[in-house]
């Protein structure tokens, strides 16, 4: 893998560990307001300073990692499983079912710009963690389904699949024990890029006021809150901004590195 992928893995590990050990890393309670200490600059007591309500920015950035990863992992898992199942069925069974799914259903979901569909769903359903995850899954599964379908179409023609068929293996067995493990590589790339996308979408929706409602320390919400004051207090926007950028960058690095590693044509380039 290329060097950037290793950097990505290192950053992602730090973010994951931060999320897991947030209660031990955070120096202050994330919701406690200290109006006397509003907009304090970074100092020994408040490493990243304080925000408009005097809350500790460092602790909020630390807990923000939890929200981001929670949304990211859930969205990748749920939309991944749904997408893989639908893509596998479309690719494996072919015929009218494949035409219906790949030419019609996939296209309908791709016809909406992703973020717009999420915005529309949350606008009509109302804000909240569960609804946000639902909206991101609705837009996320198609990517996995398309990759999986393409893989299944390729792998099902291989000799070992024909051999399994000849030995009388059931369709389910062929699909899940022979085709799926041999289709997994591009799906891992898709998951890594999907993770970056989900973290970014969560922050975007929270920034638009359609994500996780305050006082939860979502990075997007923190940036939205800091927007009105950042001319005088840039630290309130800088730290959550860097946190989002680094996290998204890390998963993009990993996805990109994996894609290059798994694709011999790109590796030689």
């Amino acid at each position, binding site marked *: 893998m290329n060097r*950037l992928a290793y950097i990505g893995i290192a950053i992602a590990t730090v973010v994951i560990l931060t999320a897991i050990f947030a209660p031990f890393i955070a120096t202050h309670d994330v919701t406690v307001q200290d109006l006397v200490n509003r907009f304090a600059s970074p100092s020994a007591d408040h490493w990243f300073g304080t925000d408009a309500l005097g809350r500790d920015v460092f602790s909020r950035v630390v807990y923000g990692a939890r929200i981001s990863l929670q949304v990211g992992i859930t969205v990748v898992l749920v939309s991944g499983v749904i997408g893989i199942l639908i893509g596998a069925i479309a690719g494996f069974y072919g015929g009218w079912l494949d035409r219906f799914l790949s*030419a*019609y259903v996939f*296209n*309908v979901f791709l*016809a*909406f*710009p*992703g*973020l*717009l569909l999420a*915005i*529309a*769903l949350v*606008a*009509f*359903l*109302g804000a909240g963690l569960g609804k946000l995850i639902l909206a991101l899954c609705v837009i996320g599964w198609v990517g996995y389904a398309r990759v999986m379908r393409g893989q299944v179409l390729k792998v099902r023609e291989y000799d070992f699949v024909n051999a399994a068929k000849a030995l009388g293996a059931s369709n389910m067995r062929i699909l899940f024990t022979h085709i799926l493990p041999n289709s997994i590589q591009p799906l891992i790339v898709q998951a890594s890029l999907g993770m*970056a996308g989900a973290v*970014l979408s969560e*922050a*975007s929706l929270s*920034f*638009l*006021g*359609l994500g996780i409602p305050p006082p939860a320390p979502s990075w*997007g919400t923190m*940036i*939205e809150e800091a*927007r009105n004051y*950042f*001319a005088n207090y*840039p630290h309130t*926007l800088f730290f959550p*901004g860097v946190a*989002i*950028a680094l996290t*998204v*960058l890390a998963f*993009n*690095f990993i996805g*990109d590195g994996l894609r290059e590693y798994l694709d011999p044509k790109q590796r030689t*380039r």
Partner: protein
Amino acid sequence: MKYKLLNFARQLALILLVIWTVVSLVTLLIELVPGSPATTILGETATAEQIANFNFKHGLDKPAFFISYSSEEGFAWNGLDNRYADYWAGLFQGDLGRSFRTDRPVLDMILERYPATIKLAVASMLVAIGIALPLGVLAGTNKNGLIDNASSFVALLGISLPTFVIGPFLVYIFAIQLGWFRPGGSLYPEDIILPAVTLGAALSAILTRMIRSSVIEELGEDYVRTARAKGLSERTVVYKHVLKNGLIPVVTILGLQLGVLLAGSIITEKIFSWQGLGLLLLEDGIAKRDYRLVQGCVLVISLTYIIANSLTDFVYRRLDPRIRLG
């Protein structure tokens, strides 16, 4: 010829089917609203008469769809006089309904703001091309060199930095610290520069990478060797021969990205108070719970996206005979 026509008809049918589904989904989205739109708009203190009047005015007193289901009565046929059919009938007459809040025609409100969004999308595309073309060519012609690695890094940075992080930082540097631009608004011609750079940053990153790999791929082709062998300068080889062929996939991406930019402009418009469709959707639609307006905005953005994508697909097929015949 017959095959071509058949193929074209099939493509067109698919696009129409997708449009029908998208319109239907957008129409039915309003049914997801918890509670009734009337109480959301008029408030909890509204009288039954006020609610009835509101529902009558906006057609909300009619059933949602041709059929309905209730646990007591099971499935019931509601006839043709329903909200879904009404919305479609309105659409064919260019009527997207009236705003729940202002009572103005939704289409008028959208048409007032739409040009600003298109202007922003086109400007950001120009910014992206302006950055990506030289950077991509430099990276591709210096494969694995310092410029290539640096441009790869900048490109990934551009993809990973969200607009709502880039935007405020650009405002901080160029509007507040340097005082070159105003931090927001869309009154003066130069107001478009910061939003266009913000919105175009991600696209320029994607384009740089595409142009880079296109250039690398084309540089390995036989015709490049021929061009070099007949003594053409490297500059002519790259700019006259390689770019001409290498830009075909880039044109496709540009077409596809126009729709993405239109949708992505929602965040940029919010950062810079750019008076476009995105801000209309957010501030007048979602924030004020004007669901009819939200419906209209979502529909118009989605349809633009579909049409832009379909046109790109069509142009691409015309450009590349391999795809046309394939």
